[in-house]
């Protein structure tokens, strides 16, 4: 899509490409490509390389240790490193905690937490969804009551990624019980080693452990752990995160899956010829590639509007909707290209390190990503909610 980049942005992109080719260790790249699970130590290799370069928090302003990049530069950095095979870094501290503290936190909070985030000293988790509030976050029931100078917190959070190895939870809960819906909610930072917290692992449909349910039972934290004015969390969060919407495109991820798809289609044989020479698969792959082109252009149009402070209309919803659809389309194609060889999947062997047989090794975790692929149209505001919002606000249908 280079015809639409300015000269400066093109140079920036070339610089990042050259750097990541050098800086990303081959073994990390290989494991990521093979969809192998990284150990905790391996996971931190890439973050620390970024930290040394000063790029650990790409979206943060310079005064807090970020590189001070434009939205366009952040976008290019994210896409280029992902396509190069850099591992995913849990983005919630950068994209949620950081901006929230910078925008609404106290000086003491900023001084304490921001450098720790910058240096990957602590892991964070986000206490958001609840068992009886699926897509409807305003019906949260976890509560914090002010008793003396402490919040006493009770409730249950679910789908909490990484709760099992996090030091802090940024928890969205109700501090004003007299309010309903989106009012009266606050964000409170809870140390995960607080008495009264218990964590139940939720294994994913393909046997991985990312999610947890977190029970909060009379958990006490100091008053000053609330971020911003109590009761304003919903408004703060909405406002501060406005700029992050285009990340929902997951463009880097989809482009990277496409690279893997084309590689597999060129090597997997359908009897005499590689799958990619089969006209039907060939057409499906080209259609997916075109869908990525369109997504990229729409993302660039959104970025331009954002950077010019123009009305963005429904562009963020479109990018979110299409981002999910395109990634799902490509993951499905990968499964179809791998075909019968994607069927074996030895969970036991994967966890225990046993030899799962050649076919199982070949398929790796490719099918697993497909099985879970609805998460892109569920998390972060389901596709149904995106459409409801667009219909109501942009199209004014009712």
């Amino acid at each position: 899509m280079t015809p639409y980049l300015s000269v400066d942005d093109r140079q920036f992109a070339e610089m990042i490409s050259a750097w990541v080719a050098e800086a990303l260790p081959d073994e990390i790249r290989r494991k990521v490509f093979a969809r192998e699970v990284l150990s905790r130590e391996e996971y931190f290799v890439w973050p620390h390389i970024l930290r040394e370069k000063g790029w650990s928090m790409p979206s943060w302003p310079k005064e807090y240790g970020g590189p001070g990049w434009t939205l366009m530069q952040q976008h290019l950095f994210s896409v280029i490193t992902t396509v190069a095979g850099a591992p995913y870094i849990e983005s919630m501290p950068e994209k949620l905690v950081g901006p929230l503290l910078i925008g609404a936190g106290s000086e003491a909070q900023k001084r304490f937490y921001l450098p720790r985030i910058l240096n990957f000293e602590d892991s964070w988790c986000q206490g958001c969804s609840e068992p009886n509030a699926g897509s409807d976050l305003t019906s949260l029931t976890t509560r914090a009551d002010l008793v003396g100078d402490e919040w006493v917190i009770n409730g249950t959070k679910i789908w909490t990624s990484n709760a099992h190895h996090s030091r802090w939870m940024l928890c969205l809960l109700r501090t004003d019980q007299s309010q309903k819906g989106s009012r009266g909610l606050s964000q409170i930072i809870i140390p995960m080693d607080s008495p009264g917290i218990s964590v139940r692992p939720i294994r994913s449909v393909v046997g991985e452990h990312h999610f947890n349910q977190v029970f909060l039972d009379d958990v006490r934290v100091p008053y000053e752990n609330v971020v911003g004015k109590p009761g304003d969390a919903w408004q703060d969060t909405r406002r501060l995160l406005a700029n992050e919407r285009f990340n929902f495109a997951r463009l880097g991820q989809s482009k990277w899956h496409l690279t893997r798809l084309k590689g597999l289609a060129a090597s997997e044989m359908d009897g005499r010829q590689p799958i990619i020479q089969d006209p039907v698969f060939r057409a499906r792959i080209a259609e997916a590639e075109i869908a990525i082109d369109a997504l990229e252009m729409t993302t660039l149009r959104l970025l331009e509007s954002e950077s010019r402070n123009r009305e963005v209309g429904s562009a963020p919803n479109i990018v979110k909707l299409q981002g999910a659809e395109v990634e799902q389309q490509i993951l499905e194609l990968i499964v179809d290209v791998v075909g019968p060889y994607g069927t074996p999947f030895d969970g036991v062997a994967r966890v225990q390190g046993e030899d799962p047989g050649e076919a199982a090794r070949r398929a790796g975790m490719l099918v697993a990503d497909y099985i879970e692929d609805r998460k892109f149209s569920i998390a972060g505001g389901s596709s149904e909610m995106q459409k409801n919002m667009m219909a109501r606000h942009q199209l004014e249908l009712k």
Partner: protein
Amino acid sequence: MNFEITDEQRMLRESTERLVRDHYTFQKRSSFFATPVPVLKDEWAPIGSLGLPGLLIPEAYGGMGLGFDAALPVLEAFGNGVVIESFLATAVLGAGLLAAAGSEAQCRAVLPAVAAGQARVAAAHSEAHGRYWLNSVAASAKPAKDGFVLAGKKVLVLGGNEAEHFLVAARTSGKDDDEAGISLFLLERGMPGLTVIPYRHLDLSGGADLVMNDVHVCGDALVGPVGSGLPLLQWAVDRATAAICAEALGSLEMLIGLTIEHLRTRRAFGQHLGGFQVLQHRAVDMVVAVEQARSMVLLASRYADDPADAARTQAISGAKVQMSKAARLVGKHAMQIFGAMAITEECPVGYFHKRLTVADHLFGDREYHVRRYAEASGY
């Protein structure tokens, strides 16, 4: 990065929009549909009076000498209306091909008149069994004294119903599907042996078949070098492909606008149609499809004037594919949402659905362009 339009583009867009409002809206042309046998009145003069036929023609030949970017809003605005005049066929395809391939004498003989709105030039590249493949040329051009004799049949000559000049692809050597051996010739309506069979397309735009029964032309009717017409033709047809996508975008916007208005106002079962969640989501799907198509049109337009290469092919074929997806989805949903009404000539929805269906099959359909995209992408 810049998606903003320039002041010049804005002025051009505004004057074109005014032109369409004054002459070419569905309502203005509703007389087409009011009688059992449509009476089609071509109105080329208003287009010519704005100088639009010369948009892409070099200034040396009396045109505006602008780039494809400038044509984009004009085409989009035309797609909003019932423009059955052969603007794309003449100003983009015919004149574009002649300006790129013709000699100075040929350009001087034809282009100033085209730019002034006094003549039209159409490209005759299709034959009856070649489908979208430009190398499928069986019509022959054999050397004769002082020139060539052309024989054979060309079909689907866009704008051929009203063109005075024709750029005809004919074979000077090689077999029917060879890439080499195709040459271009400039023919005139009324030449002995040349029969023009005009017709209308589904959307009332015009076309023609040409029957060449030993048409004698002088050597200076040859456009470009002998036997190497294919790349020029491919380039010009690619640019016309970007143009038809831009026109289709205008028609899609019209359908979206009509549909949303209908959903907001039409009532059924005690509420507005727009209150039904399935129709809300369907309207969203339509908007999303159009925005994705718009993105690809913008990309294609950046490449449209460039020399042919893989990135250009990907951008243009990608745009046509995305446009095809949008045209079908939006056309079908709009027809369904309007219900029985849409199936009448009185309702603009059906007209724009037809227009998009024609666009969908001009210059290559989805399958054709998917194939070209895959080849250009290197697999």
